[in-house]
C-alpha cells in the first residue's frame, strides 16, 4: 500500500463480504422455498427472501466498487484520497441505511414499510431491484454524490490515467442512471421502459466500464505489462461495450408494449454484446502471457483470469442464448433468464470485486504483495468451489428452463403444474448452492487467517 488513505477500502471490503454472505444465505432460503413452499413461512415469505437476495447483491457490489475505487484511485492518481473522513462518514451512512432497509423488509409487511417510510408522498417502491423505500434511495444518491466528489477530486488533483478516467466515467454513469429509480410514471409501459435503465443499463453499460478498468488495474499491477498496451485494449473494450450495450438493452423491450422495431434493434445490438466480454477474455490472457514478472499473489491472477472467462460465458454466451426476439418469444421470463442472471452477475461483477479484494487484501493487512502460501491455496480452492458450483447452478437452471419452455410455452400447461415437474432441477440447484456457500466461507477463512508470507516465500 503506497498511500495511507487507501486503507479506507478495507471497511468497504469488509461490508461487501458480510453482505455477500447474507445474500447467499437468502439465496439458499429461497432456493429451498422453490421446492418446499412454506419453508420459514410466515417468518420470511418467498417475495421477501427474493427482495433481500437481489437487493443485497446490488448493495454489496456497490460497496465493492466503492472500496475498489478508494483503493485504486490514490495509487493511480499518485496522491492521498481527497478526504478520508468523508469516505468513512459515507460508509456508515450507507451501511446503516442499507441495514435499516433490510431489517424493514424482514420485520414488517412490505405495504407497512411503504406506509412507514412515507412512500405515498413520493412513490418509488414496488419495482423489482428498486424495492427500497424512497428515503433509502435518497440516501443512496447522497452517498453516491459524496463518493464521486471525493474520488473525482482525487483524480482531478492528481495524475490522470486511462484506468482512473474510465473508472470514474463508469461510476458517474452508475450514479446518473440510478436517478431513473425516482421516475415512476403511471403508464405501465413507460414505467417498465425506464425501469430497465437502472440496473440493466448498469450491467450491460457503465458497469462494464468499471469492470474493464478494475481488471486492467489488477493486470497492470500483476503482470507489469506497459500501460500503453493496456490503454489501447481499454479503449477498444469500452467502445464496444457502449456501442453494443446501450442499444442492446432494447432486448428487454420485446413484449412489454413498446414499438415493434425494438425487436430489430434489441436483437441485433444485443447479439453483439458478447464482443466486449470476449475482448476482455483475450485481453486478460494476452497480458498474463506477456507478463514481465511472476507476481507472488497467484490467487489474484487466478481471479482476474477467471472473471474474464466466466463473464464471457455468463453474460456473453448465456445472454446470447435467449436474446434474439424469435427465441425470446418462448424463453421470456423462464428459468433461462435466471440461469443467465446468476452466471453473468457472478462472472462479471462478483468475481471482479473478489479479484480486487484478493489483490488489495495483503497490502491492506500489511503483508506486502501477497498472503502466505497456505492462505492462497485456500483462496484458490474457494475460487474453484464457487465458480464450478455456480456453473452447475446455471446448468441446472438452464435444464429447468428448457423443460419449462417445452411444457409451459409449447405444450401450454399451467405455470404451477410445470413448476412441480421442475422440482428435481431445483433440488440439484440447491445442492450446488450449498457447495457455493462452502466456497464463500473458505474465501472468508482464507482472508481472515491470512499471514505474512515466510521470508523465503516472499523473495
Amino acid at each position: 500500500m503506497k498511500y495511507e488513505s487507501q486503507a479506507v477500502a478495507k471497511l468497504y471490503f469488509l461490508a461487501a463480504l458480510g453482505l455477500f454472505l447474507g445474500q447467499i444465505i437468502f439465496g439458499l432460503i429461497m432456493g429451498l422455498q422453490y421446492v418446499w413452499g412454506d419453508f420459514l413461512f410466515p417468518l420470511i415469505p418467498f417475495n421477501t427472501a427474493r427482495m433481500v437476495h437481489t437487493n443485497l447483491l446490488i448493495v454489496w457490489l456497490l460497496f465493492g466498487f466503492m472500496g475498489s475505487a478508494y483503493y485504486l484511485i490514490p495509487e493511480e492518481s499518485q496522491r492521498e484520497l481527497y478526504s478520508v473522513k468523508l469516505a468513512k462518514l459515507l460508509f456508515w451512512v450507507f451501511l446503516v441505511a442499507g441495514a435499516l432497509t433490510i431489517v424493514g423488509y424482514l420485520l414488517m409487511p412490505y405495504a407497512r414499510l411503504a406506509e412507514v417510510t412515507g412512500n405515498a408522498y413520493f412513490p418509488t417502491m414496488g419495482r423489482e431491484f428498486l424495492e427500497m423505500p424512497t428515503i433509502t434511495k435518497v440516501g443512496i444518491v447522497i452517498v453516491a454524490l459524496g463518493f464521486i466528489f471525493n474520488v473525482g477530486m482525487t483524480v482531478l488533483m492528481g495524475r490522470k490515467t486511462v484506468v482512473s478516467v474510465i473508472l470514474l466515467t463508469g461510476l458517474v454513469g452508475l450514479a446518473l442512471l440510478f436517478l431513473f429509480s425516482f421516475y415512476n410514471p403511471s403508464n405501465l409501459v413507460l414505467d417498465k421502459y425506464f425501469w430497465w435503465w437502472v440496473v440493466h443499463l448498469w450491467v450491460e453499460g457503465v458497469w462494464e466500464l468499471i469492470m474493464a478498468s478494475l481488471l486492467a488495474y489488477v493486470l497492470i499491477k500483476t503482470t507489469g505489462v506497459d500501460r500503453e498496451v493496456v490503454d489501447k485494449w481499454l479503449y477498444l473494450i469500452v467502445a464496444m461495450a457502449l456501442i453494443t450495450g446501450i442499444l442492446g438493452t432494447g432486448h428487454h423491450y420485446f413484449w412489454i408494449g413498446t414499438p415493434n422495431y425494438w425487436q430489430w434493434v434489441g436483437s441485433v445490438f444485443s447479439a453483439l454484446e458478447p464482443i466486449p466480454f470476449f475482448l476482455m477474455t483475450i485481453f486478460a490472457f494476452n497480458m498474463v502471457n506477456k507478463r514481465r514478472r511472476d507476481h507472488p499473489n497467484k490467487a489474484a491472477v487466478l481471479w482476474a483470469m477467471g472473471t474474464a472467462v466466466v463473464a464471457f460465458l455468463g453474460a456473453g454466451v448465456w445472454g446470447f442464448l435467449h436474446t434474439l426476439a424469435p427465441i425470446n418469444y418462448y424463453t421470456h421470463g423462464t428459468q433461462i433468464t435466471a440461469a443467465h442472471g446468476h452466471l453473468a452477475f457472478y462472472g462479471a461483477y462478483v468475481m471482479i470485486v473478489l479479484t480486487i479484494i484478493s489483490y488489495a487484501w495483503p497490502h491492506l493487512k500489511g503483508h506486502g504483495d501477497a498472503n502466505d502460501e497456505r492462505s492462497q491455496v485456500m483462496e484458490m480452492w474457494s475460487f474453484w468451489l464457487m465458480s464450478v458450483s455456480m456453473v452447475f447452478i446455471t446448468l441446472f437452471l438452464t435444464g429447468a428452463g428448457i423443460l419449462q419452455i417445452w411444457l409451459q410455452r409449447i405444450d401450454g400447461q399451467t405455470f404451477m403444474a410445470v413448476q412441480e415437474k421442475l422440482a428435481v432441477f431445483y433440488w440439484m440447484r440447491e445442492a450446488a448452492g450449498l457447495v457455493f456457500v462452502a466456497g464463500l466461507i473458505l474465501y472468508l477463512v482464507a482472508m481472515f487467517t491470512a499471514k505474512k508470507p515466510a521470508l523465503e516465500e516472499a523473495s
Partner: protein
Amino acid sequence: MNKSPSNSTAEITPGYDTKREYPHGDLAVWAFIYAELLVFSVFFVSFAFARMLNPEVFVSGQLTLNPWLGMTNTILLLTSGWLAAAAVLANASGKQSSALKNLWVAILFGVGFLFVKGYEIGHHFAAGYDLDTDSFHFLYLFMGSFHFLHVVLGVGVLVILAVKVKRGDYGPDESQGLESGAAYWHMVDIVWMILFPLVYLMR
C-alpha cells in the same frame, strides 16, 4: 526504409514502405473496424430475411426512395474515401501540403454526404414515415441514421487528422494515426457501397 519494393503501392509511391508492418495503422483500430463491419453485416442479413418474409412491403417501400440522391451520395463518399487514401500516400512521400489539401476536400465531400442524407431522412419523416411504419422503413431509416452517425464520426476523425497534418505531426516516418483514421473512413464508404444497392436498387 524498404530496400526492395515488390509491392505495387511502393512502386507507385517512392518512400512508401509497405513491409514496415502489417496491417498499416493501429491494430486496435482494425479490431474496431471489424467489429463495426460485423454490426452492419448483421443488419444486412436481417434486411435480407425481412425482405424474404415480406417482399411486397419492401418493393413498395423502395418506391418511396430517390435512388439519385443515393447515387449522389455514393459518388461523394467514394471520392472522399479516395482522397483520404491519396492523403496517406502523399504524406508517405513527404508531400504534407498535398496531403492536407486532399484531407480538406475529403472532409468537404463527407459533409456534402451528410447534407444529402440529412435532407433525405428529414424528407421521409416529414412525409409521415417513421421507425414504426413497417419493417422496410425501420431498416431503411435505422441503418441510414446509424451509418449517418458513422459519417459524422469519420468526418470528425478527418478534421483531427487534418489539424495534425497541418501541425506537422505526420511525415514519411510517422503515419500510424493517419493510416488508422483513413482505414476507418474507408470502412464507412465500404458499408455504404453495400447499403446503397441493397436498400435503394435491388428489386
